[in-house]
Structure formats: structure tokens, C-alpha cells
């Protein structure tokens, strides 16, 4: 029997990046806000202090910060005619858990999408012809333009204190930055990180081969910084423990280091941790949410009434919560009708491994977004005529870490164990590096999320089912990008080079990335989107999904966090300036 709590103005489901940004903006405006978080409370000094935060076994191998499948998982299949099976050990992608969410364990790579990414379908059809795109490719224009989102990118980057070099300031190209990026209203809040030898060698080779390298934008800060909320971050120490780790030095932007200190000062904000929202409750018309139900760690059910429900969990769980709550029409891949779960997409990554001659790279001097990058082959920055694919990605030398358990590069032909293997790892560690591509993943009719017909979670609710495989377009794109990258790699004069273009089928047991997007897509047409351009549900006007990656109509050739943060601010403004004045559909 659920116990009913006193009503709140706003209930936030999930206290990660979007939840903490919305919490701050709405609490600051005077609303009474409660955030309900599935995982534990997490704080820098007590949960990832420098004295043990750099524990590779605990965090990178045993995945201490991540969601446990026993608590919540999903089922997976490649094709619609297969039977999906539950993921019993997360490995292909790693959903976070707890306060801070993915903002705790991310690498800090902070990219804007290209201006043409926001109108990708109309742009490609205009440039390459109306029939150029594959029939089953379901990419669509975003409901907002780059010009509209630019101020919100700027706000999120200022929140993080992102380090980098602008390539385009208000339309004027800037030497040293990314010449392909959209215009920026301001320079990055902090200057670029210092580059190591490997990145410097890559940049030389890239220039020599006619490309335009620039430092990777990083929310691992090059210098101490005070953000607009008054919260101070420290300088990155290049310790190389970012992805899968919390930062103990207050130098990687996260909800903990960038928002929560200011948010927690509001007496009208509170957080309920270790409590999982099971359902968004609707009134008898089904057009208005009355609040949420959740279950705490003792199994006690609670009902939290609220006037506004903000769905701020990780992308999968946003989709699943709408499906379980009956908000929006579920997507049916057979007919192509329905919207919730539609346009699930991922990221198409690949690598080129190098062993250099007589170099000492000191690869352990690293941070999550540390390297030199080229953007020549991203989005539609290059002519796709005759290539047989669309999309692209950034590529370059990124030195995120060289931790001792997992970083054991050896030349080809080395035995997999024993004295020779040991000798080879010792000789190779300082000379080896990996170049990477980070490619787009366009959406397709047969890549989607729905409720599993068989498997249920600990509370008896159906698990979510993922149906996903790489399509030819993405595999061709990956082959092309990897070839280009290998050409630059060869210009670095390696002793050995091995290219690993992405190959199908998608394997959910090999880690690639946790950039899982789509399922609650934003758009201008209710028949192809779950949310309108303000991330508001078309069907239930007081439910918003403020910018989690589940709102992406497809995934582009960049990491999602900057766009997630920008859309959180975009939605906060829409709620404050439009919705609160006249609650109702904004579309």
C-alpha cells in the first residue's frame, strides 16, 4: 500500500546532469522541488577521495560506480526475428547509478553538434537528392536550430568550465581551434589542456597529411575556475582516472563539482536517494500527470504528488518509464506507427593501434578528454558523393588513460602469457598508443526499444528490450574513417600499425561506448516524436524529458553530454518563461 506524501511543485526523476540543472533553475525560481534518485548519495571527499579513487580493479574492472543488473537491466537482440535475452553483466555499455549519474563517470569530452546536424535530413536531401538516403533510415531534423541552441551550449560549457580553443567566434575563424565547428558566442571558459608527446606527434602527422588538428574540448579543467553558480573547480592533475571513476580532485565537471553545492543551499530543494520511481501517475483523463510512485530500499511504496514531472534518468530508463506509465504511443516496428522507443541509436567507434619506434610517450599522463583531434570527416564536413554512406565522426589521438591492468599493448605475434609476454609489455608500454574514430549512428526502422514480452524486473515490471544492429551505412562510414585515420597513423612512422574498423554484427558484450540515444525523441510532428521542441510530452503537458540523450532523433559524430546539458538549460528556460505562465501544451 503506497503512502502518500505532501505535494510538491516539481518532482525530478534522477539526479544526474539534467536533474541537477533543472533542480537548480527551478528551485532558484522559488519552486518546491524534490529529486528522487535510484542510486546512492555520492560526494567527492567521502566517495571518491584521491586516496583511493584511482583503484582500477574496483572501479574500471569491477565497475563499482555502475548500475547492478540485479537492480535493473534490459534484454537485447540484434534482429527483430530473434528472441532477446537479459543482459546479466553490463559490458557493451555501462549505465551509471546514483547521484551525479553518468556525470560522475564520464570522460569529460564536451562537444557541440554541427549546425548541419540539426537539420540533417533536409540538408542531406537537398545536397545529395531526395532519394539519396536508405529507405529504412529514419533520421529527422531536430526541432531546433544550431543558432537557437548555441546560447545554451555556452551556458553548459560555462557551468563545466570547459577547456578548449574556439575555432569559430561569431562567424570568424580562429587559428588553432576546430575550423568546422559552429559559431561560438564566446571563447571556451578555460584554455586547452597541455598536450603530451603522442598528441603532438599526431597533430604533426595530421597537418602533414593536409588536416586541421585542434585540442579536444575537455571538462577536465586546465586551470582552476569559478562557475556562474559560484562553485569552484580545481586544476586537473592528468592522473588518468576519469572514465568509470569519480574525480577526487574537484577538477572534472560533474553535478557534484559544478551544481550540487549551490543546489543544496536551497531550502526548497530536497533529494530522496536509493528510491526508484516505478510509475508516473496520470489523472482520469490521461492528459495530466498527478505525480509519481516510487519504492524505497525497504520496499515501502510512496506516492509523491507534484504539479510538474521531470524525467531526468539515463536514456534507457526515461524510455522505459514512459512505456510503463502509458505516456505516448509505443513504437511498433512492424507498422512503423507509434513513437515511444523509436529511433534508438548508438555510436560507431573504431581504432587504429600504433607501436612507435624509440619514443617515450608517458601514456599514464592522461585525462579523460586529452588529445589532438581532426574534424575533417565529421557530419557533412566532407563530400559524400559516391562514398555510399552518410555521416562521419571526429578522430584523433586521445590519451584518456594507460592504467596497468587493461593497458598491455604488445606487438603482433607475442604469446598471450608467460615470460615473453611480460617482456613485450614492458618494452611496448611506453611506445604504444591508440588512435580512435568517434562516428555517428543514424536511426533506422528496426532499431528501437520496447517492453520485453518475457522478462521482468524485481518489482514484476517488464524489462525494456533493445533491438539494435549496425547498418551498412555505419559500417561503410567506419571503414572510410578508419582508413583515413590509418593514413595519418602511417605518417607517424610507426614500427607497427593495426586498424580495427567497426564490424557487424553489434556485440553487446564488448565495450564500445555508453552513448545510447533516442527513444523519447523531440520533434515537430507528434507522429514521429514523443516530445515537442521544448522537450515536453505531446500527450501529457506537465511531463518533460529535459534533454537526456533519449531525446536525440539520431546520434551524431560527437559525445552527447554537451548537447544533453544545453537541452537541459533550453528546457529550463521553456518551463520558466513559457510553461509556468500558462501551463499547457507549448508545441
Amino acid at each position: 500500500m503506497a503512502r502518500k506524501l505532501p505535494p510538491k511543485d516539481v518532482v525530478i526523476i534522477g539526479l544526474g546532469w539534467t536533474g541537477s540543472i533543472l533542480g537548480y533553475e527551478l528551485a532558484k525560481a522559488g519552486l518546491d522541488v524534490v529529486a528522487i534518485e535510484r542510486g546512492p548519495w555520492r560526494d567527492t571527499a567521502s566517495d571518491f577521495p584521491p586516496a583511493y579513487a584511482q583503484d582500477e580493479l574496483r572501479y574500471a574492472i569491477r565497475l563499482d560506480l555502475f548500475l547492478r543488473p540485479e537492480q535493473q537491466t534490459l534484454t537485447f537482440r540484434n534482429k527483430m526475428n530473434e528472441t532477446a535475452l537479459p543482459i546479466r553483466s553490463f559490458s557493451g555499455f555501462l549505465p551509471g547509478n546514483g547521484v551525479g549519474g553518468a556525470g560522475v563517470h564520464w570522460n569529460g569530452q564536451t562537444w557541440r553538434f554541427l549546425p548541419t546536424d540539426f537539420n540533417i535530413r533536409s540538408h542531406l536531401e537537398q545536397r545529395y537528392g531526395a532519394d539519396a538516403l536508405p529507405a529504412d533510415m529514419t533520421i529527422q531534423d531536430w526541432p531546433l536550430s544550431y543558432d537557437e541552441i548555441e546560447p545554451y551550449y555556452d551556458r553548459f560549457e560555462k557551468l563545466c568550465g570547459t577547456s578548449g580553443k574556439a575555432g569559430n567566434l561569431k562567424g570568424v575563424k580562429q587559428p588553432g581551434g576546430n575550423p568546422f565547428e559552429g559559431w561560438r558566442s564566446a571563447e571556451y571558459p578555460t584554455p586547452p589542456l597541455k598536450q603530451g608527446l603522442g598528441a603532438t606527434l599526431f597533430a604533426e602527422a595530421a597537418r602533414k597529411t593536409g588536416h586541421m588538428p585542434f585540442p579536444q574540448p575537455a571538462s577536465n579543467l586546465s586551470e582552476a575556475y569559478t562557475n556562474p553558480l559560484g562553485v569552484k573547480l580545481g586544476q586537473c592533475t592528468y592522473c588518468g582516472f576519469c572514465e568509470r571513476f569519480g574525480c577526487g580532485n574537484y577538477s572534472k565537471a560533474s553535478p557534484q563539482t559544478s551544481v550540487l553545492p549551490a543546489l543544496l543551499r536551497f531550502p526548497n530543494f530536497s533529494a530522496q536517494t536509493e528510491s526508484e520511481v516505478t510509475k508516473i501517475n496520470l489523472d482520469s483523463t490521461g492528459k495530466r500527470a498527478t505525480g509519481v510512485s516510487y519504492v524505497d530500499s525497504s520496499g515501502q511504496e510512496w506516492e509523491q504528488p507534484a504539479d510538474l514531472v521531470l524525467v531526468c534518468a539515463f536514456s534507457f530508463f526515461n524510455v522505459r518509464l514512459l512505456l510503463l506509465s502509458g505516456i505516448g504511443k509505443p513504437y511498433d516496428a512492424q507498422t512503423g506507427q507509434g513513437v515511444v522507443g523509436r529511433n534508438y541509436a548508438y555510436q560507431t567507434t573504431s581504432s587504429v593501434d600504433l607501436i612507435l619506434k624509440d619514443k617515450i610517450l608517458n601514456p599514464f599522463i592522461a585525462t579523460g578528454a586529452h588529445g589532438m583531434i581532426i574534424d575533417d570527416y565529421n557530419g557533412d564536413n566532407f563530400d559524400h558523393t559516391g562514398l555510399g554512406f552518410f555521416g562521419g565522426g571526429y578522430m584523433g589521438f586521445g590519451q584518456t588513460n594507460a592504467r596497468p591492468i587493461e593497458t598491455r599493448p604488445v606487438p603482433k605475434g607475442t604469446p598471450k602469457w608467460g615470460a615473453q609476454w611480460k617482456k613485450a609489455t614492458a618494452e611496448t608500454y611506453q611506445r604504444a598508443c591508440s588512435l580512435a574514430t568517434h562516428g555517428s549512428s543514424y536511426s533506422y526502422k528496426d532499431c528501437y526499444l520496447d517492453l520485453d514480452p518475457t522478462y521482468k524486473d524485481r518489482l514484476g515490471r517488464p524489462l525494456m528490450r533493445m533491438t539494435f544492429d549496425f547498418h551498412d551505412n555505419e559500417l561503410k562510414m567506419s571503414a572510410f574513417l578508419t582508413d583515413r585515420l590509418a593514413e595519418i597513423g602511417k605518417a607517424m612512422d610507426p614500427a607497427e600499425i593495426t586498424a580495427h574498423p567497426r564490424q557487424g554484427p553489434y556485440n553487446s558484450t564488448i565495450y564500445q561506448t555508453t552513448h545510447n540515444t533516442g527513444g523519447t525523441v523531440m520533434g515537430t510532428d507528434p507522429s514521429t516524436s514523443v516530445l515537442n521542441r521544448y522537450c515536453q510530452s505531446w500527450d501529457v503537458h506537465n511531463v518533460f524529458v529535459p534533454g537526456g540523450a533519449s531525446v536525440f532523433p539520431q546520434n551524431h559524430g560527437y559525445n552527447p553530454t554537451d548537447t544533453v546539458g544545453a537541452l537541459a538549460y533550453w528546457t529550463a528556460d521553456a518551463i520558466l518563461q513559457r510553461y509556468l505562465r500558462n501551463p499547457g501544451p507549448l508545441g
Partner: protein
Amino acid sequence: MRRIFAAALLLVSPVASAGSASADSQDFDRIERGRYLAVLADCGACHSKPGGQPFAGGLALRTPFGILVAPNITPDPETGIGNMTDAEFLASLHDGRGRNGRRLYPAMPYPAYTKMSDDDVLAIRAYLATLAPVSNAVVTNRLPFPLNIRLAMVFWNKLNFTPGRYQADARKSAEWNRGAYIVEGPAHCGTCHTPKNFLGGDNNDHALAGGTLQGWFAPDITGDVRKGLGGWSKDELVQYLKTGANKWTLATGPMAEAVTHSTSRMTDRDISDIASYLKDDGAHDASPRPTPVEAGDGVMRAGQAIYRDNCAACHRDAGTGEADLFPLLAGSAQVQSDDPTTLVRVVLQGTRAVSTLARPTAPAMPAFDWRLTDAQVAAVLTYIRNSWGNAAAPVAASAVATQRTSLAKTP
């Protein structure tokens, strides 16, 4: 005639003002002044319990002699001070005598409040009278026998207490005098920062030269260049009191509470006057610099290795720290204080800095008690206290052991 009238009023007032009648609830100026004086005097710090009703009492103070609990000072007639007369209220703050002449313990800082003017004390009274009465009975005296006999305070007062209002120093500016009044009176800085004699009384020959209580060393806040605030500019001191942080350090422990409830809420003018006074408390030569422990010493070398592994990521190789985030160690008076109690404590237990509107970050130092032995803590502190131009007595492993034991007893 006028004098007689005044005397008659005085006689009458204890009766007339019983209950809340003493406060004219229309006298907004006075009530507001009383509210602000209660901030200066930080009444709420002791008389409120975290999560409890403000001023309803209940915070347990661990004194060297035992536990005392601050009483309920809301106007509740039964459990609060609703039945207290103005004269009794004045006597509490000025003379350490509560209702019916009962002796107070000096955990109530009447040795400082005695310097406050009658008018200021009664303004606080007027403000407290406007609070909602809260029924909360508090057993204040939890001292062991024989200290629990309040009459013992008669003798304590004879030895340690000089009643009397603040006397302005005509040679000094109005700002300095205002600062002195706040520091010595309502803000009762000496209650923590002045060393105590064996009876717990102030050692006024060394006023504000630093004291140890509740497992913290409240640092020297005299103008001493090496040990006190002599190295801080007036602006840095103002910034610290206002925001809880400056380039040198961040407020933590009991001072974090003082910043939260009191100094960050003071007017800019009062903070400036306090700083004027503290920066000009008489000629202070730097106390003699001890000979630093040699860098080649075995303990120093061990300390350096421990420092690089555990501390340098935030405090930096050269102890330079980061303003408002990681305290500066090189040149810090606190780091070189004679009494390393606070240093040992923050290494063992960790601590969180204060969060204020201007500096919300509240960074925290993690605990190292699970990771470093007593000898390792002693070595790293000895290294920090004798590097980068610092010079201070080495920290003994036995001192760390003692503190580890006492921290384990007082969660």
C-alpha cells in the same frame, strides 16, 4: 525628582516585565537591532540543535569538564525564558547569574557578554520575545560531581571573571572601538581563541593567541606575523569572515559554524571594523622562528614521500593549494601553529569547509585514518610544517595516537 522616578521604575520593572511584557512588539527598530545582535553574539549556534527549532536549545557542548547543554531561550514560560525578567536576563549575560540568582557555567560566554551595553542586551531580549514559544525541556547540567554544583562557580568567578561593560579607547578610531566591542563582547571570539588556564578561565595575558577546545585548535588571531593574522591583509581577513574562504584557508569545524550563523551575516561595516581591530591589536613582533627540521632528516624524507602520494594532488607539490578550494600550506600560520591539534585531526578524520552564499563549494578534505599510521601522519605533518619556508616543532607519533583515541570516543 527625575532620578527618583528612574529608581522607582527600576524597582518596578522586574515585576512589570515578567512574561513577554518587557518587549514592546511595536518597537521594530529595537527588535531588528536585537535580531542582528543575536547574529553578532551567535546565540543560535549553541541554543539551537541541528534539525531542531531555532533557539529551542539542546546542543550538547563538550567542555573539558563534562557535558553542558544549552537551554531553550524561546519565550515558552515553562521550558524557555518566558518568565524571566529583564533584570534576570541582564544578570545572565553580564554576571553569569540566571533565574533566581542561579549560577551559570561559563560555557555561556558571560565573561565576554559582560562587555555588552545594557541597551544591546535588552534589544536581544526584545527580539527573543518575538519568537514563537517552543516547549522543549532541556537538562542543561550534565557535569559530573562535584562540578555539577553550580555554587562552585562563585569561586570560579572570583578567579576568572571580571564583570564590566566595554570601555572605549579614546586614542583609537570609532571603527577600531566598534571592532573591539564586537570581538570582546557579543562575538566572544576569545571564548575559543584565547588560551585557557587549568580552570578553563581565559588567560588574558595571551588574549586571542589561540586555544584548544573540543578537539580543535582555534588559531592565534593576534597580529603576530608568524603565528597569527599578521600575514593576512585586512581585505583577506574581511573576505574570510564574510565568505568563509580566502587565499590562505577555508573555515571548517567550529569556525564553519561561526561563519554560517554569525560572521557571514554581519554587515560589511562591522566585518571591516572587526578586521581593523584585529589587524591593530598592539605592536606585535613576529614570534621567534624555530629552527626548521632539516630536509635530509629521515622523518622529513618519509614525510615528503607520503605528501606526494596523498596530499600533492590537491595541495600541490610546493604546498601552494588553490584559493577557496585547497588551503595554502606554504607560509600558513595555522600549519605552523604551536599546537598541531587541528592538523592531526583533519588528516585523521577529514573535514568539510563551510558553504556560504558567496563561496558555496564547501570542498572537503578526505579522512586518512584508515590509510596512514600514527608515525606516517606525524611524518607528513612534520614535513608540511618544515617545508617551503615553514618552520615548526615536529609532530610526535604519540600525539597522533592520543588524538586518534580521543576522536574514536567522540564521534
